[in-house]
C-alpha cells in the first residue's frame, strides 16, 4: 500500500473526486521519483495539474494530442518510469484506442490511465463528451485492469492500487463531486474484489461508480418500504471481475440487477451476465444503464434519473424483477 495521507469525512465533501485523484497522485509523486504525469491540455480539468505544480520536471502537457500522449507514456514506461495519464474518458478510450491497445496493453507496460468525466458526468457537454462505451472498449483489451470507483475515497484507493500493482490500469472517475459512499479509505478495498454495501437475500444489485451510492439508497428504501432485503455490491473493478461474489449472489439471491453509467453493451452488466450464464444456474437478470442510445444533455443527476440508473430507477427495477422467477421447472411460460 502506498499509504501516507489520511482523509477525513470533512475532506470527502470538500473535494471533488478528481481532486482526490490529484492529491493521491501528488502523494505518490513525493514517495516515488519514477512517477511522472501526462495530460493533453486537461491539466486543470482532470486535476493531474496538481502534480504538475509540485513536480514540473516530471509533468508533460502534450497539447491536444491524445495519441501522442499514449505513445510517449508507453516509451516512458518502457524506460522504467511509471506514467499516469489523464484526459477525459471518451478520448482516453476512443481517440487513442489504438495506442492504448498496442503501445500500452500489447507491450504490457506499467502505465496508468486515470480518465475523468466518465459516463454522463459531463452531462451538459453532450455526447461528444459522454463516455458511454469506455468500459466496453477497455474491458476487451488484454492486460488492462479496469476500475470504476464509486467516490473520492475509492478513487484514492484505486490510484494507490494502480501504483502498487504492475501493468496497465484504466480508472474512470467522474467530473465534479460524487455522493459520498465512504468516509475514509479504510474499508478493505482490493482490486478485483467487490465490496458489499448492504446485506440481502432477496435480490442482488451490482453497481459501479456513481450508481453504487444510488443502489445503496434504493436498498435502504426497499428495506423500510417493501421489507425487501437487497444485497448491494459495489463492483468497483470491472476487470478482473469478482466471479466469486457474482456466483454467490446467484446462489444466495437468484435475482441480479446491474447498474452502470455506461452502455449496457460490454460494460459491468455484460461482465456480470457472462459469469451468470457460464454458471449454468437459473437467475433472473436485468441490466440498468444506457440502452444502446446516446444520452441526453443535462445535469448528471437528471440524466441518471432519465436513464433509470438513480435510486428511483433501481427501486422500480427491483420491484419488477422480484415479480419475475428464475426457471425452476420445465415450464418456460410461468415467468412473469
Amino acid at each position, binding site marked *: 500500500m502506498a499509504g501516507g495521507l489520511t482523509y477525513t469525512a470533512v475532506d470527502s465533501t470538500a473535494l471533488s473526486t478528481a481532486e482526490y485523484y490529484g492529491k493521491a497522485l501528488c502523494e505518490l509523486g513525493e514517495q516515488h521519483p519514477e512517477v511522472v504525469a501526462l495530460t493533453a491540455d486537461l491539466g486543470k480539468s482532470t486535476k493531474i495539474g496538481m502534480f504538475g505544480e509540485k513536480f514540473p520536471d516530471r509533468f508533460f502537457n502534450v*497539447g491536444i494530442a491524445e*495519441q501522442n500522449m499514449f505513445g*510517449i507514456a508507453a516509451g516512458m514506461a518502457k524506460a522504467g518510469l511509471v506514467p499516469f495519464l489523464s484526459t477525459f474518458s471518451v478520448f482516453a478510450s476512443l481517440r487513442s484506442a489504438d495506442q492504448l491497445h*498496442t*503501445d500500452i496493453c500489447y*507491450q504490457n507496460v506499467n502505465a496508468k490511465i486515470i480518465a475523468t468525466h466518465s459516463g454522463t458526468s459531463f452531462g451538459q457537454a453532450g455526447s461528444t463528451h459522454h463516455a458511454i462505451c469506455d468500459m466496453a472498449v477497455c474491458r476487451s483489451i488484454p492486460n488492462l485492469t479496469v476500475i470504476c470507483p464509486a467516490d473520492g475515497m475509492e478513487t484514492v484507493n484505486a490510484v494507490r492500487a494502480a501504483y502498487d500493482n504492475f501493468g496497465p490500469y484504466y480508472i474512470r472517475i467522474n467530473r465534479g463531486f460524487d455522493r459520498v459512499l465512504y468516509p475514509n479509505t479504510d474499508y478493505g478495498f482490493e482490486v478485483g474484489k467487490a465490496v458489499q454495501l448492504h446485506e440481502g437475500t432477496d435480490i442482488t444489485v451490482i453497481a459501479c461508480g456513481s450508481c453504487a451510492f444510488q443502489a445503496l439508497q434504493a436498498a435502504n428504501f426497499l428495506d423500510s418500504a417493501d421489507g425487501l432485503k437487497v444485497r448491494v455490491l459495489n463492483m468497483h473493478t470491472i476487470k478482473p471481475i469478482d466471479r466469486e461474489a457474482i456466483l454467490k449472489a446467484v446462489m444466495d439471491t437468484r435475482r441480479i440487477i446491474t447498474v452502470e453509467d455506461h452502455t449496457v453493451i460490454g460494460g459491468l452488466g455484460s461482465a456480470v451476465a457472462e459469469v451468470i450464464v457460464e454458471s449454468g444456474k437459473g437467475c433472473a437478470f436485468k441490466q440498468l444503464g444506457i440502452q444502446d442510445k446516446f444520452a441526453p444533455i443535462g445535469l448528471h443527476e437528471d440524466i441518471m434519473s432519465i436513464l433509470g440508473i438513480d435510486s428511483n430507477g433501481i427501486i422500480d427495477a427491483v420491484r419488477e424483477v422480484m415479480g419475475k422467477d428464475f426457471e425452476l421447472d420445465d415450464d418456460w411460460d410461468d415467468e412473469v
Partner: protein
Amino acid sequence: MPLSKQEWLALEKKANELRRLCLDTTFWAGSGHIGGGMSVMDILTVLYHKYLNIKVEDPNWADRDRLILSKGHAGIAYAPVLVDKGFNDPEQLKTFNHTNSKMGIHLDSNKVVGVDASTGSLGHGLPIALGTALAARVQGKNYKTYCILGDGECDEGSNWEAAMAAVQFKATNLISFVDRNKCMIDGRTEDVMNLEPFCDKWSAFGFIVKEIDGQNIKELTEAIDFALENKTDKPVMIVANTIKGAGIDFMEDDYRWHYGALDEDKYNQAKASLDRYYEKRVARAEKEGA
C-alpha cells in the same frame, strides 16, 4: 570522427551480409516486406555496427541507447540484424512467420530480444521514441533514442503530434530518420498522398533536417555524427532518400514489392543481384573512401 575507408568497407560487408540474411529470411518465411527491408538496411547496419551503445549480454541495460523501428513491418530486416548481433537464436529466422514462432512480421518486444518497442501500427514509433527520450531526461541518463520512420507512415497525424512535442520539449537526445523510399502499399507516396515538400515540413515543425542518400554509408555516418554533435535545442531529422528493394534489381523502386513472395528462381536472381550490388558498393567505398 570521419569514416575511414576501412570502416566504410567493413560496414559495407556487414550491410551486404544483412541484406542476404533478410533475403534468406523472406525465402524461409515464403514472403515478406522485403522492399522496405532492403531500403532501411543501411540505416540499421550503421546504427547497430557503429553507433548504438548496447550490450548483447545485457539487453535490458537501463543506460542503453534505444532504437524504435516505427516502420515495424520492416521486422524482416530488423530480425536478421538482431540475430546477427547475437541477441536471438539464428534458428528463429528459419521459423519467421511460422505458427507459434517468436518472430512474425511485426516484432514483439516481449518475445524478440533487443526490440525496444512493439511496432507495426503506423504512426506509433515517434511518440514512443519521444517517451524514452524524455524518460532519459527525467532519470538523468545520457542515452540516445533513435527512431526510424517510413515515409508512407508520415501520413499518420500522430507523427506530427509527436513532431510538435519533440520540438516543444527540446528533445535533442532523440535522433530520427525517415526511410524515404517513396513507395507505399498502394502506390508511390506522391500518388497516394503527397508528402512534398517533405523536408520543409519537418523544418517548419522545428527540426533540423539533414537530407541524405540513405544507401550511402558515408552520408549516413556524417548525418548521425552531425546529430550527435548538435548543440542547438532542436532535434534532428535525417531524411534518408532510399530505394525500395535496394540491391535487388527486379524489386528496385517498385512499390509492388512492398510485400512479396519469393520462389526459388526469384530467390536465386535476388542473390545474384545482391552480389552485383555489393561489388558496386565496394567500388564506391574504395573510390570515395579515405
